[in-house]
């Protein structure tokens, strides 16, 4: 009797023809692409996902040969996949860029310290240098302290404004002039919807720009994942078994953004391509020329509704700098300095030694998780 090898239980012998990948027609389809509903196999998925990002990079001339590029790395799925894919594409297509991981430590105990551990592992896994910049050293505040002082409602305002600056400052410290972030198509579509819902005319035209650059700043930013669906990024991370940190920030997410996100989710269920459709729409949004207002008296000073003082003439000046910290600002004093001043006024005069009472909800969750009988 001849030997028949046992069948591999993991690999079903017969794949039905209807189950085959719609691109290669030779392997079993595992993924349905939200963009065009094609059912494709794992290998074809890797191929299209990576090639699309490569095409985005090439057609927008994102990188120059020999450029040093910082990846804004939070340890989350987007930035982890971004670091991985950029390294891969750089080797495959020879962009000639040097990649550095740049992380911001906002000081959220129980959330950021864990995700930074992920970034530190990524540093080893991908062999990329890592730089960490903290709010503590830049502003002398941590997010936990800010929330304790200003409440949880506005936490995203503070965190967003500070992080934007912190990324630039971190890059400048390393002598890097280009920061890439993991903003994906879903983020971008959500922003387009939000800008319309809020009537944010100032941001409407620029909200889908893949690269933002200012004449006054040496540091440019770009989003190579502009056309990549969040779902596909997650799938990519999953199938490539990448090491990422998946917990959401424990401070309250922005309430209004939440409603927009909910709407997007419903729309996606009806027409999965809607995310890139919204981006297409976003790219075609243009404002009518502004009606010329009657000229204000000479030497007038306009005070904006948030208390900031606008520049002379009230016009947007590209490359204007904050009078206090020298960072880019469209007003005389930048938003971060305004927020810091507000915080400083409310800071407790005295503090207790080794006080941990400011540690937020995240810390409590972590502690509870570790409890055992």
């Amino acid at each position, binding site marked *: 009797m001849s030997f028949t090898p046992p069948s591999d239980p993991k690999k079903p012998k017969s794949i039905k023809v209807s189950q085959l*990948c719609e691109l290669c027609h030779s392997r079993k389809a595992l993924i349905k692409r939200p963009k065009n509903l094609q059912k494709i196999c794992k290998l074809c998925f890797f*191929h299209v996902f990576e090639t699309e990002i490569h095409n985005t990079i090439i057609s927008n001339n994102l990188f120059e040969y020999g450029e040093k590029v910082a990846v804004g790395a939070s340890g989350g799925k987007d930035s982890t996949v971004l670091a991985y894919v950029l390294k891969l594409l750089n080797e495959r297509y020879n962009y000639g860029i040097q990649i550095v991981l740049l992380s911001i430590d906002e000081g959220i105990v129980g959330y950021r310290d864990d995700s930074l551990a992920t970034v530190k592992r990524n540093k080893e896994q991908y062999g990329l240098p890592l730089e960490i910049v903290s709010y503590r050293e830049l502003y002398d505040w941590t997010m936990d302290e800010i929330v304790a002082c200003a409440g949880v409602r506005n936490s995203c305002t503070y965190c967003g404004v500070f992080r934007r600056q912190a990324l630039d400052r971190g890059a400048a410290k390393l002598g890097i002039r280009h920061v890439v972030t993991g903003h994906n198509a879903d983020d971008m579509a959500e922003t387009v919807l939000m800008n319309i819902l809020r009537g944010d005319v100032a941001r409407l035209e620029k909200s889908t720009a893949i690269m933002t650059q200012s004449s006054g700043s040496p540091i440019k930013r770009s989003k190579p994942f502009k056309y990549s669906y969040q779902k596909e990024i997650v799938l990519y991370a999953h199938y490539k078994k990448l090491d990422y940190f998946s917990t959401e920030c424990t401070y309250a997410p922005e309430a209004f953004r939440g409603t927009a996100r909910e709407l997007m989710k419903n729309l996606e269920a009806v027409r999965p391509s809607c995310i890139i459709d919204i981006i297409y729409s976003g790219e075609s949004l243009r404002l009518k020329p502004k009606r010329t207002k009657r000229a204000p008296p000479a030497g007038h000073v306009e005070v904006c509704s948030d208390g900031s003082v606008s520049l002379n003439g009230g016009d947007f000046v590209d490359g204007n700098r904050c009078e206090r910290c020298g960072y880019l600002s469209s007003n005389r004093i930048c938003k971060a300095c305004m927020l810091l001043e507000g915080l400083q006024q409310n800071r407790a005069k005295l503090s207790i030694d080794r006080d941990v009472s400011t540690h937020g909800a995240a810390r409590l969750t972590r502690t509870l998780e570790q409890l055992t009988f």
Partner: protein
Amino acid sequence: MGINQLCKRCKTAEAAVVSRKEPFCIACFRKFVSLKQRKQMMSDQYFQDIFKVMYPDKKKTAEEAERLNQGSRILVPLSFGSSSIVMLDVLNDTLTEQREMHRGKTGFRIDVLVCYLKDDLEELKRKAEALMTVKLRDNKNSVKVHLVDIESSMNSPDFTRIHLQDSTYMVRNASVSANEAQSVKELLSSCSNRSAREDLLNIIKTAIIKRFGVQGGYKAILWGHSTTRLADEIMSLVVKGRASQIANALNDSEEDFEYGEPLRNLHPMRDILLSEIDAYCFVSDLTQYLHKYKPQDTLLVNKIPVAPDAQPPRAKLTKNMTINELARQYFDGIEGSYSNVISTVVRTGAKLDDPENSLKSKVRCGICNNTVFCDGSHWLRNITVTSSHPIEDAEEEAMFRAWSASEQGKVRGEYLKLTSEMEISGHEFPVCYGCILTLGEVKHKSLIWPSSQSNSVESVIEDFIISDESDSEHEGH
């Protein structure tokens, strides 16, 4: 809310409606809505010339003034939803007022246009006649009703097949013989979802109305869109990749050249919320004229009692909703906490301009007739990769051969056959991004469209005019 709350405006009558946190009595509320509409009707010189009663002055003689009054004809598309019915009611009141104030003179004439599908014809005819004989009785001489069969949009001597190749997003067309033509009904049933169906029906209806407006030489088309409706239209256009149309769709101050001759559009209800229009319907006894529309009583002080045997409305599955319905649901949901969002969206939409044209020449979409500013196929091709990872081993090679020979290959083959036919005989066809999406949701990603519509619309309409004679005939019977 206290039952005996007084109207804040006249301070004498009991409040019946609470809107924008203010209690109104019926008369004051009707006036409030009416004034909002009339303000838009007086928004610029062009519209003032239409709606005002003209008298001889330094510039014009008595005959000229009379000619202007007679020549100010406006087109009112009537869907028998609450907005268009309320708009017509306010226009009717305006006419009545003018006749009283100006000793029988009126400043303008109304042509009502009803687009129907055959199943609704009897019902709509009945409602239109009721409107004419009861509500519009006093102004019968200034109002005319036309009914147009939506199917008539497919009356054409020649037809073209418009086809989308999904692997390249290329749209091609090729002429086909008239016996391949589809009816609107067939076309709609070949859509794979409600959004596509709604989209196509909307495109067809809008084309009929605008073409009718141009052919009839009307001074303006009055669209009954409420603030709420405009807000969800703007959001839906963005979601459907049609944001470049927003500026044109909301433009009340410039001429619209979509169908050759210049045409003016007006959205007189743009400052009125749908809930207010619905409340107006209830307090003005207009609900009997509504067709396939259920007004909401949210603003009424005394809610409409629900019939005891009435079924609670079934909640719709998100998957079965259209994009417009989802946008509306969103606005309904956030009304409490972010109530100004609706008007913010409309104001933002009004600030938009046409995008820059990235094409060499000015092109119109072959389906929806809107201006195409950017090559949507090219844009999609640039961001979508459709090549595959190479076949790696003998096993995969075998699978590929099995696929090539199989049934599955043939089913897809029908579509592929059509595609390769179009590749040979078809020509590249300009279609906007939004219509590429719609085309992708039609069976075989292909539809038969009339290639020229000439003046065929006109001839069909004449048969259905409810003239004064037919009215008197009815009264006579």
